[in-house]
């Protein structure tokens, strides 16, 4: 029987997993730190879960509350910097994205991660008016996952070309490049009809084609440039030459006066 390959997650998988392997979990501790407690209290109404994981306070919220929660965190709790914002693809498992905002409080030197689950196809509210760093971060998230962001001033692809198809960080995105990706440059610069003339891309710079007489010559079997490859031996003698003969006297001087 042919091996089953899941279509919703084409990423590399572990080739072998021990049947008895139990995956432990990084401990999630209850919030005890005084500063973190005050943060949790400030946004208590909107959070669904809160814990500390490896020194970072994690707040789970509903996707529609993201602007409200981040505003409270910025204005009341002193989280004035949004270090990072992005998403994790859980489409295969839950048909959802997990979005996170990583915030920093510079006076307390504390970090909070706000996490929410966003259904596939839903849009999230932009936090660009709170944190300008979200301008680029949200564009990157849109580019890489296709998550739409409402009220973003300029939601456009940022890293991939504007006319690219597909969103590269989705788990369904092919690893070896699809048809569109492999012919992108040829189609764009020359047109689709040139695909046959140019041929598929070869990224191996050291590739040697024995029968290519335009770029390679076989010692003892030389043929004229571009002529068909032949197995007939030729009797060409090579003279012994030194590439640079340092002992040779200069034949001419550039300037007579020297």
């Amino acid at each position, binding site marked *: 029987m042919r091996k089953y390959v899941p279509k919703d997650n084409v990423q590399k998988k572990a080739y072998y997993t021990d049947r008895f392997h139990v*995956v432990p979990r*990084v401990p999630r501790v209850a919030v005890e730190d005084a500063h973190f407690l005050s943060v949790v209290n400030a946004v208590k109404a909107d959070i669904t879960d809160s814990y500390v994981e490896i020194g970072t306070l994690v707040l789970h919220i509903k996707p529609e509350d993201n602007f409200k929660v981040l505003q409270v965190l910025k204005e009341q709790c002193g989280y004035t910097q949004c*270090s990072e914002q992005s998403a*994790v693809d859980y489409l295969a498992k839950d048909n959802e994205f997990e979005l996170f905002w990583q915030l920093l409080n510079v006076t307390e030197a504390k970090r909070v*991660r706000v996490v929410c689950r966003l259904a596939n196809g839903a849009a999230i509210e932009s936090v660009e008016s709170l944190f*300008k760093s979200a*301008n680029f971060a949200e564009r990157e998230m849109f580019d*890489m996952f296709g998550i739409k962001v409402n009220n973003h001033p300029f939601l456009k692809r940022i890293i991939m*070309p504007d006319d690219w198809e597909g969103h590269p960080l989705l788990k369904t995105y092919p690893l070896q490049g699809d048809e569109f990706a492999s012919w992108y440059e040829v189609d764009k610069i020359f047109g689709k009809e040139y695909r046959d003339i140019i041929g598929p891309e070869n990224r191996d710079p050291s590739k040697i084609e024995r029968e290519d007489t335009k770029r390679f010559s076989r010692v003892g079997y030389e043929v004229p440039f571009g002529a068909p490859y032949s197995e007939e031996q030729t009797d060409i003698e090579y003279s012994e030459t030194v590439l640079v003969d340092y002992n040779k006297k200069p034949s001419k001087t550039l300037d007579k006066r020297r």
Partner: protein
Amino acid sequence: MQVANKLSPFFENLNFERDDNTMVINFGPQHPSAHGQLRLVLELEGEQVVKAYPDIGYLHRGIEKMAENMTYNEFLPTTDRLDYIASTSNNYAYALAVEKLLGIEAPRRAQVIRTMLLELNRIISHLFFVATHALDVGAMSVFLYAFREREFAMDLMEDYCGARLTHSAVRIGGVPLDLPAGWLENLAAFCDKVDYELEHTYEALLTENRIWKMRLEDVGVISAEDALSWGCTGPMLRGSGVKYDIRKEEPYELYSELDFDIPVSDRCDSYGRYRLYMAEMKESTKILRQLIPMYSKTEPQLMAHAPQYISAPKEEIMTQNYALMQHFVLVTQGMRPPKGEVYVPTESPKGELGFYIKSEGEPYAYRLKCRAPSFFHTGLLQELLVGTYIADVVTIIGSTNIVFGEVDR
């Protein structure tokens, strides 16, 4: 819009025919001052920039995607290609994030070596900044002097790990090698040299130089509030008067034991940031000098002992059956960290370099997000360049110290 045909070619750098009397200039991606592959579309009114649009993605290699399809150890050399000016900072930031996820700590000697390498990389990166920034502004000789010293630092890196640019000098759980003989003496000599040259060459050439001051003072002014809002970190943030250095505030490695200052500038302009870079190099040599005597007081262990995740030392692998089995599994299948997510910030020479790793307990990271400082500094350009003159654009780009390996990833 221009209508291009074979008889009237398309001027890709200029757009003349516009109704509003502004000129649109395309800057890069192949511009010597673009620091790699930055493309800027600038709208000019006279010589003043009224709109700037940074266009990135010309060096996109999908490093985050690659991380999802490589085991944790396989991915480490790929991080060299992020900020290729200071590769060890990336290796270290990644290794630290994975170590936090695993809950292991590197042995003391590895910590000393790592901190040394990090500070050496900071000097390499800052020298590169001074060199290219001065070259952009027009001071060619500084470029030559700074590259001379940078060469010595890269020789030190080469002596340690064999590579000059893509170091991969850090491993998850420690470092691969001990310091070679005589390395510490060379390092001490290098510190002296850098300190001497900083004072007698770079600062003498630049700090009070009239042209340098005229070109840098009050150029690229960022307020503290803007710097925070745009996600500026590192010298960009401290140059705006916010004293935040991750080495001090959220110490990792040996930084809590070391005595060093965090230079801050409240000038908020390019000149302040230039002074900051100079001061930071001096702090780095100060740290390196403190680390040299610490080295000899450590035990020779280089990699953490965590047989589930990290291969045993080579002697054990060669002599003990179980260590060999563990090693075989770790090489063929890769380590499987516990389920969980972690975000670990480190102070790279450019700013806050953080790795967010989401692990589902598999040998491949479920999601790895690299928080690169230059990415956000590039985003800032769209606001910072507006209102400045075209001659200052290059100064401002140089002052942000962006490296496109980590902007595009």
